[in-house]
């Protein structure tokens, strides 16, 4: 029985593998945080915020604890590469926390409840830099994610580990494989497992600028546009386990989340944030 209920400890850690499309189309401009920027810039910013939260959750009085292994793979042009600094692909929260990266101060103008406007300042680390060039070698990237997830599950075989979660963010279709090949490699990833369950694969398909018709966590293909690509992404994505159902219900308004898949189609930047918040919900399972 797949439980997805393992407590995450240093002895039984988990893993996140983020796959980020860095193809040329990610240069397209979108509105994010009140300003126009490239999709690649917005996604890098969202990934950095997500990494920042994972790292923050792993901080304890005696330092950062290695509750997760974290990889961020970029794919664009002929390139499949880690978007995190260093030679290793997987990084621990401690290594991310202590890594020397560019930091930026973000000034956000906030409308306070009493009507006043105030500028809030936060400093964020920029582990991931935006990139956008060339075609979309998503098949090769999926194979790389498979290799990483396989290596991780073999290393932790026999352990009660919450399984790795692979989250793919793209605005295009694979230019290096057929739909059939994509479905096969996705199935390969989902077939990997730990004693707590199979590896989870979430797919986020970013909309063209300005679209507001994003669908998150559909329970059937019928909720998606009637296109082969939408059906492919639905089929590639994992059914959402019970542990996610409360959060999925809250975001979709569905009282019954049975059969919902970890996919989002025509996602806005806000949808991506919501998807990543739910995709990384296992941070709440840390001991």
């Amino acid at each position: 029985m797949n439980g997805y209920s393992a407590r995450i400890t240093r002895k039984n850690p988990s893993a996140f593998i983020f796959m980020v499309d860095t193809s040329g189309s990610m240069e397209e401009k979108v509105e994010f945080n009140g300003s126009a920027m490239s999709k690649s810039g917005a996604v890098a910013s969202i990934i950095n915020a997500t990494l920042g939260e994972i790292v923050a959750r792993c901080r304890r009085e005696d330092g950062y604890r290695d509750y997760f292994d974290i990889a961020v793979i970029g794919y664009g042009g002929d390139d499949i590469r880690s978007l995190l600094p260093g030679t290793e692909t997987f990084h621990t929260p401690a290594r991310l926390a202590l890594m020397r990266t560019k930091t930026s101060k973000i000034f956000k103008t906030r409308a306070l409840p009493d009507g006043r406007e105030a500028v809030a300042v936060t400093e964020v680390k920029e582990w991931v830099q935006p990139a956008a060039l060339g075609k979309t070698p998503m098949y090769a990237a999926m194979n790389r994610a498979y290799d990483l997830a396989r290596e991780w599950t073999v290393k932790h075989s026999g352990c009660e580990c919450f399984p790795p979660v692979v989250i793919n963010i793209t605005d295009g279709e694979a230019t290096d494989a057929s739909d059939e090949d994509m479905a096969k490699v996705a199935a390969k990833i989902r077939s990997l497992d730990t004693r707590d369950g199979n590896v989870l694969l979430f797919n986020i398909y970013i909309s063209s600028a300005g679209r507001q018709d994003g669908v998150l966590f559909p329970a059937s293909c019928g909720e998606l546009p009637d296109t082969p690509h939408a059906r492919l992404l639905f089929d590639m994505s994992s059914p959402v386990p019970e542990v996610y159902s409360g959060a999925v219900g809250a975001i979709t308004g569905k009282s019954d989340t049975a059969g919902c898949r970890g996919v989002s189609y025509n996602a806005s930047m806000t949808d991506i944030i919501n998807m990543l918040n739910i995709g990384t919900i296992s941070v709440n399972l840390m001991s």
Partner: protein
Amino acid sequence: MKKYPSINDYAEAVLNPEGRFRTLSDIKAIASPGVPVSYTLNQDRVNFRVLRHGMEYMLSCKLAPRPTDDREEIAIKMAADLASPILAPCEYLRGEIYVFDDTGAGRYHDLIATEIPAGIPLYRHLAKLAAGNKNSRETFLRNYLLFAGEMAANEAFSHNNLNPTNVFVCNDGQTRLTDYRLLSIPGDGLSDNDSLFLTVTALIARALASNPELFRGCGEEFFSSTEIMKNRIREIFPGSEVLSLQQILEDTPLKTIHPAAAGDTRQTDYEFSGKQHEGLSSVVSEGKFGYAAANGRVAIPMQYDWGGDFEEGLALVRRGGEMGLIDKGGREILPIEYEDISWSADNGVILACRDGKWRFYDRGGNPVSDDTFDNVGEFSRGLTWVMRRGKYGFANRNARMVIPAIYDDVTSFNDEGYASVEVAGRRFAIDMKGKTI
């Protein structure tokens, strides 16, 4: 399901407090190395350290739902009615903090504001002890056990969420509890917990007292919840049951510790509070500590509020909130007027703090130097970290700075002779000459 902000969303509000709090005012974040606002995590909550009107507070904010959510506000009100001196003052504030989520939408969220007791949390105390000597560890365990026993005798509640971040070892020598949002009173209808906290705490303390080597592995996770503690006990003593409080109190080693803990009010000359060390045992009578020789004769009369074990001829004693160091003849090597003392027998150095300043003394109680420090660590490989004007460096046994105080944060030197240090947000390792590795 209610959506809760992330740590970073809450942190933004705490770091930019203007207009963000409904009732609290004059909030100022306390920074710690590497983070602009110091925080701890405890299960489903992030607890920020702040100053409120100049006093230290903990603002506890929810990160994820738990089945016990509905109980928290009730538990805190119940605790206020108890007016127990060991519970730090605390308020549950509904819709208090205005937080913007990462999509930019703002909303009020509940928080729990707790006044932080003047002292150090147990985890820091444990770390200090774990780096110290065996005697001080055992002494601490006995005191902790005594605390559990006194609670059994005097307090009518269970904390239910005991861990080293919410137990404070206070400057006045007392122990105080924070983060008691899961508190229950047996029979209040909310919980059938029959002092499980005490039961398990006592078991833990006993397990550790009889297996001091476990102590080094005794980190936060060891105490993180009563369930985990119970399971750990089962791991340590396979096949054994987690005993009832009554069963524990009937057990001889605990019974000898404190008459009140055992419900035993027999008048005796004294009770042993520990094993014999260097020919003397710490003993207690009517709440006062002294020392007895192997033949039972009282060697140092009962006059202290607490007395540690002798180590290399010296023992720490406490009267009121002040510490001193005595020799086997009962002479005060350091008078009982220090805020804190660390006796490093392996290094023959006494580190003692008075009026907030630390000095180094030899084993005769003589200052080895005129130099003072704002804070000190424990000796490791002949060096201890010291703090001056907010910066850390390393000093040797003679209080001489061998690595200057230029770092924002440091760890003690490890067995390989390396320490981790941080300057301007950059963390790296140095060797014992201060050379960057």
